[in-house]
């Protein structure tokens, strides 16, 4: 049963990722990424990471992807030109990707990691629940938590400064 759930999630995640790279229309790429993120949330549930899975669906597939959809609609569909400034890029890049995959797989499977344990240790029932994650965030990782909130504030201000309409720009457009 767990194997079936894993393979369904894995096929969804890999299919979504391939669709993000392959589809020509950026809008469809965004929708494919949502499929990928929801499949990953299912895999997180299999790994007993309930809070991370919920945050993945609510924050990522919900909020961040809405931002992407709006920008994709605002910018519109610009077709990528077929002109290739770097010769052989289309051929070399997939080769490089396969090389990274093979290297990482060797690094994962070639070590003694598999001899540690196949199923992982027995974990308490509260593993990964919002209560225990919240406890951990506010007791052990309080500084990290506050730094993350500060980072979000800085990013919000940066987005307003970057994308906001400047006065000189509007006069240029009016003239």
């Amino acid at each position, binding site marked *: 049963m767990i194997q079936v759930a894993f393979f369904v999630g894995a096929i969804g995640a890999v299919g979504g*990722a391939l669709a993000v790279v392959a589809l020509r229309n950026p809008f469809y790429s965004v929708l494919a990424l949502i499929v990928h993120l929801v499949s*990953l949330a299912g895999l997180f549930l299999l790994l007993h990471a309930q809070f991370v899975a919920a945050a993945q669906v609510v924050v990522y597939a919900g909020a961040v992807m809405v931002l992407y959809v709006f920008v994709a609609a605002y910018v519109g569909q*610009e077709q990528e030109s077929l002109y290739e400034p*770097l010769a052989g890029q289309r051929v070399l890049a997939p080769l490089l*990707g396969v090389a990274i995959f093979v290297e990482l*797989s060797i690094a*994962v499977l070639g070590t003694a990691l598999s001899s540690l344990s196949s199923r992982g240790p027995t974990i308490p029932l509260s593993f990964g629940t919002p209560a225990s994650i919240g406890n951990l*965030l506010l007791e052990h990782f309080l500084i990290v938590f506050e730094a993350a909130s500060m980072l979000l504030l800085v990013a919000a201000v940066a987005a307003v400064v970057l994308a906001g309409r400047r006065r000189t720009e509007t006069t240029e457009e009016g003239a």
Partner: protein
Amino acid sequence: MDVSWYLVLSAMLFAIGAVGVLVRRSPLVVLLCLELMLNAGNLALVAFSRSTGNQDGQIFALIVMVVAACEVVVGLGLIVAMFRRRLPLDVDELRKLRG
């Protein structure tokens, strides 16, 4: 399920994201492929957290999600600013900073 299955899946997703960053030229899609790579890292973190029975990896994954959200906000702000100035939305044509 063995943890190495999850790690191999994570490696595959990371490789697909890296190929996307190299092949695609629309900055919006490059950002999407960066998300793919970050999520592959998240999957590996959560898998290790399960295999060691320690929740610290899940905290790490949450913080990675926060950093990814910040990166998205700044990146999309840049794309909107580029669009307003009628710059070409093509990462191969924006190479004035190259030395």
